[in-house]
């Protein structure tokens, strides 16, 4: 079960993407997400996809691993595509069913949506694969640090994120254990309708919550023992410095953005 979750997973490596300043990486990923939705025709989309594939190649993350992260939302992509197929209005009617029409605009929208969602997932997975969760939360902490002005405890937030990420695999392991224990006692988790199956989860969630609280209590002790007070100024082992490399990537994204806008202008909008 733990294998299916790709959020916060890290693929160790020494590629240029791994070496990037995580702050820059987060911001550029956000910009890239915007670019994905700016693409209005196949030319622009092609440029964007080529850029993403280039990123994948540079990162050295096996394409298979990225596809695995798509597997979980394949159904969502499919449903979105189908809905858009019928939802879009206008354009040439390709197929006239009694209850709905399929237009060429609908087909384009469906394709664009499927590609957009896939690129969305792949690009954000690429970011988490090439950044350790600690670096990620550190970077988020630094990016959010202006919020300190509003008395928001940014470092506490970052610590909470780190701990949440740290305990995902531990809790998944625990769920597996509890499920097996309840199955051994005759619990039926797999049959019945949706409501019955939801009810069957209660005997799993209750022990999970109890043990999580106990874990939290022990963890708090352990953290205190290591002089964590929540308020003290902490230093960091890993410093973040922007290098020449980061400026190259920033330049690359700017070129992409400009390219997509130009291609949108010069070619017909399909959606």
């Amino acid at each position, binding site marked *: 079960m733990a294998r299916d979750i790709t959020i916060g997973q890290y693929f160790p490596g020494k590629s240029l993407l791994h070496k990037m300043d995580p702050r820059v990486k987060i911001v550029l990923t956000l910009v890239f997400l915007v670019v994905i939705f700016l693409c209005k025709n196949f030319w622009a989309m092609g440029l964007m996809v080529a850029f993403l594939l280039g990123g994948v190649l540079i990162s050295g993350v096996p394409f298979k691993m990225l596809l695995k992260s798509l597997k979980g939302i394949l159904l969502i992509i499919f449903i979105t595509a189908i809905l858009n197929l019928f939802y879009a209005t206008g354009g040439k009617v390709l197929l006239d069913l009694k209850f709905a029409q399929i237009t060429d605009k609908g087909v384009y929208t469906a394709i664009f949506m499927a590609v957009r969602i896939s690129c969305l997932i792949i690009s954000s997975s690429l970011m988490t694969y090439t950044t*350790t969760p600690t670096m990620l939360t550190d970077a988020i902490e630094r990016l959010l640090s202006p919020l300190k002005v509003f008395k928001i405890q940014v470092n506490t937030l970052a610590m909470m994120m780190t701990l949440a990420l740290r305990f995902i695999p531990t809790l998944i392991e625990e769920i597996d254990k509890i499920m097996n224990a309840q199955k051994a006692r005759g619990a039926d988790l797999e049959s019945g309708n949706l409501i019955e199956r939801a009810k069957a989860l209660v005997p799993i969630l209750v022990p999970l919550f109890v043990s999580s609280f106990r874990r939290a209590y022990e*963890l708090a002790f352990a*953290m205190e*023992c290591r002089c964590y007070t929540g308020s*003290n100024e902490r230093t*960091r*082992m890993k410093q973040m410095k922007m290098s020449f490399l980061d400026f190259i990537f920033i330049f690359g994204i700017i070129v992409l953005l400009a390219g997509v806008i130009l291609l949108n202008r010069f070619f017909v909008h399909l959606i």
Partner: protein
Amino acid sequence: MENIIEFENVSFRYEADEEGKLLDLAVENINLGIEKGSFVAVLGHNGSGKSTLAKLTNAINVPESGRVLVNGLDSADEKNTDEIRRTVGMVFQNPDNQIVATIVEDDVAFGPENLGIEPQEIRRRVDEALKSVNMYDFRLSEPYKLSGGQKQRVAIAGVLAMQTQCIVLDEPTAMLDPSGRQEVISTIKRLNKELGITVVLVTHFMEEAVEADRVIVMDKGTVFADGTAREVFSQSEKLLAVGLDVPQATQLAKLLKAGGINISTDILNEKECIEALVSLLKE
């Protein structure tokens, strides 16, 4: 030798339960001194107060009466808490519940980061700490992929990186398999011998206690026996009376002696037992 931790008439009880009933004292009138650089094992069955004793050493628990002094600092004074925790580090039973970060080296860095140490110095300490517990090759691994013994060694490295003078381990091997247990105990022993770190090992395994310079047996919140491993384990009847065993080798020697064989009864481990038996056979 100077004492690093000093218990003076220490009593402690946990907070009352929901009904407000006062609980019994968890430890009562403890007088102890832990010598700098020594390796002390604290033995006792469940509820004997041995874990409470451990938590009193670094101000997680503060005595109800009496004083705990760490390098002369009173643990009851909150101003000293930080300094005491820099002196006495602690490793707990469940390795999963004390690892904070998602990467081994980041976890080891957690303590020094809290102390506000310079980044390069943290890097140096982390590498050094990981090397001294033989986990340097795993520095970029994810903790949940490690075995129990490896996780526990990472936890020890986390304490080492803070450069504490004393490590208190509260049943660090209770959740480990025999090989993991062996890894942890040999690591602890090496740190004590090579780096001169004071070690207090709370355990209920006799075989681990045998390794220590000094064994303290707790029962019902008081110190029941205190001495070298040989002194303590030679009184097997007394230990059995408080629900503790003696090491198997000692037990075997005792039984042989009772059966009329002339063998020394202060045997502590298998090696000594074999030597004694071989020399008997030669005679």
